[in-house]
């Protein structure tokens, strides 16, 4: 499973733009097991089981969940890792 470090894309973005928080969004899909998603959230973000389960249920019931928010570079790293676990995810600017 994922062993790689963060990979920056668009690393020429301005300082002002890089200060904008980014959200990491995980989307529901019909195949991934609920406890697989929970396990990934625990492994990747270090969340305790109850928080990981809460986020997993949000994905399952609402179709998406904001699982992390912060700097762009770290958000890209998390999306990369989520993709390596085969979870549907993307980053988007926080509103």
């Amino acid at each position, binding site marked *: *499973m*994922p062993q*790689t470090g963060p*990979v920056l*894309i*668009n690393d020429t973005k301005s300082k002002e733009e890089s200060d904008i928080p980014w959200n990491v969004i995980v989307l529901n*899909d*019909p*195949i*991934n*097991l609920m*406890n*697989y998603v929970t*396990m990934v959230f625990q492994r990747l973000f270090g969340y305790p089981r109850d928080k990981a389960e809460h986020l997993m249920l949000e994905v399952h019931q609402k179709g998406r969940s904001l699982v992390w928010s912060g700097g762009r570079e770290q958000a*890209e790293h998390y*999306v*990369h890792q989520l*993709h*390596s*676990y*085969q979870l*549907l*995810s*993307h*980053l*988007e600017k926080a509103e």
Partner: protein
Amino acid sequence: MKHLCLQPDGDQRLRLSGLDPVILDCLQSLPDILAQRDASGVRHRLFPNPTTTEPESNRDWQRLITPELHHLFAAAGETVTLDLAALAADPEHNNHFQITFAADHLNAWMSALNQTRLILGELFSITEADMNHTDFNLDQPKDLAVFRIHILGYLLQLLIEHAGTA
């Protein structure tokens, strides 16, 4: 599946035993299904874009990140394919099979099983409603795909539980 069991086999290996012929068939189908990870319609699921609004970032991602993910997924599949060569009769249960593999292959197994389920899901356009279906006609390719997704999910569940206790 009543005999299905995953347990340590010494310090460094795991033994998956009690594999009935149905599960065996699902496991043996893994390499052929994994070989379809580049099929059109599958790639977008296994290698999605990182944004919904930045075409340039998405292009960079597909150029820089996707090959690495592809290598990661292929390596996991190859690990499991090689492990499957060790499938053998289960001495404790008639007409059942077992396999032992290195404990540090656990993540590769989880990845390969999950890839296979997702590939089947895309190839047969499986929906949430399909997944809730319980009446299977295994002569129908789509029903067979859903059935295999469930069987492989059951195996994946065992691995996840083991990973949580390891």
